[in-house]
């Protein structure tokens, strides 16, 4: 756990994040257009539109790659948490960029008076039986629908309505969207453009996303196997000073559920590792202003009973804690959310 962890400051950081995000995307699209223009100077309006189609299409694809990389990156290095906490705006912007790509594609057909031929691209049913020659636009459309669904349900209203587990499961559809876009490009433009840049983009992006997920999964596995159950079912965490002050140790219960054991000076408490907001990894957070603070979006909970301070109403499951021969131990059976369970030890360290 690094020093310098900072809670999410709601408004200013969010605006800064959005400004950097939009500026970065605009810069990418602008540079792409300039290079495209120099490389193949457009001869007519459709050529011009084509450059923009590609600029927006590749931008959306690369953004999707980044979104899928943020999760594992944040687990490997805490500096990436900054990206994570506002991933939602990233997602919505990706949808808007992809939508512009599609709108430009319509303009491309329209500029040549070919708009009426477009539906046939989707309804030539025989093509759906092919691999090469598969209606790649339909793959793009399916991906766009998923991105739309994600963007539309990204608001906290839906999170509250659907509950975090369902909402998270829904957001796993983003991986399906990624697969669809990869094939949209592989079976589309890659089939009739010979530039090695397209396979390079696809393979590079795919390799990066896979490698990051593999490394993160491997690290988690190592951590899950590390915990040691002991006498009468309680879990040993270690002496109080093994828990970083204002930080936590994460222990894994025999069933696989994770428990965050926090220490705030001489007070030690155990909470579920799952944040009530979006199931973020609470144990990777810190104690800020006397409250356990989630690293993802800054939701806060009291260490003593897992309740969010007023006016908030979230409650987390707590766990019983005891000191046994100088070793902190946790009862892995969860208490009802909001049950006071922390203990205060006489002293910490030698």
């Amino acid at each position, binding site marked *: 756990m690094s020093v310098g962890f900072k809670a999410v400051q709601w408004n200013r950081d969010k605006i800064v994040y959005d400004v950097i995000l939009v500026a970065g995307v605009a810069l990418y699209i602008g540079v792409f257009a300039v290079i495209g223009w120099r490389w193949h100077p457009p001869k007519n309006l459709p050529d011009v539109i084509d450059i923009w189609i590609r600029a927006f299409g590749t931008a959306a694809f690369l953004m999707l790659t980044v979104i899928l990389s943020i999760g594992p990156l944040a687990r490997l290095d805490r500096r990436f948490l900054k990206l994570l906490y506002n991933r939602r705006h990233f997602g919505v912007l990706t949808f808007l960029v992809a939508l512009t790509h599609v709108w430009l594609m319509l303009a491309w057909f329209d500029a040549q008076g070919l708009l009426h031929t477009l539906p046939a691209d989707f309804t030539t049913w025989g093509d759906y039986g092919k*691999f*090469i020659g598969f209606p790649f636009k339909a793959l793009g459309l399916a991906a766009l629908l998923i991105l739309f669904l994600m963007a539309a349900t990204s608001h906290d209203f839906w999170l509250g309505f659907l509950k975090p*587990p369902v909402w*998270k*499961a829904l957001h*796993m559809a983003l*991986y*399906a969207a*990624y*697969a669809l876009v*990869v*094939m949209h490009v*592989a*079976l*589309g433009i*890659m*089939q*009739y*453009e*010979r530039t090695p840049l397209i*396979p390079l983009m*696809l*393979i590079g992006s*795919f390799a990066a996303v*896979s490698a990051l*997920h593999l490394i993160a*999964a491997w690290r988690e596995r190592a951590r899950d196997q590390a915990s040691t159950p002991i006498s009468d079912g309680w879990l040993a965490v270690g002496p109080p000073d093994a828990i970083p002050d204002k930080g936590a140790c994460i222990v894994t219960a025999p*069933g*696989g*559920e994770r428990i965050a054991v926090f220490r705030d000076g001489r007070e030690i408490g155990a909470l579920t590792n*799952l944040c009530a907001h979006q*199931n973020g990894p609470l144990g990777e957070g810190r104690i800020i202003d006397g409250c356990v603070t989630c690293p993802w979006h800054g939701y806060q909970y009291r260490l003593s009973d897992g309740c969010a301070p007023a006016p908030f109403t979230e409650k987390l499951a707590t766990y019983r804690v005891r000191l046994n021969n100088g070793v902190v131990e946790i009862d892995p059976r969860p208490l009802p959310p909001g049950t006071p369970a922390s203990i205060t030890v006489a002293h910490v360290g030698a």
Partner: protein
Amino acid sequence: MTRKHRLVHRLAWPALALLIGLGITMALVLRPPPEPPKTAETHR
């Protein structure tokens, strides 16, 4: 992530990754050779 969610994730993503890898590879391997003479407009 909850435990169940993590389990599904752990099983699903290698399958999806394999599928995408296979998709890209096949699309590259089966791609028609470039037409030597420059002919009509690219089709889409």
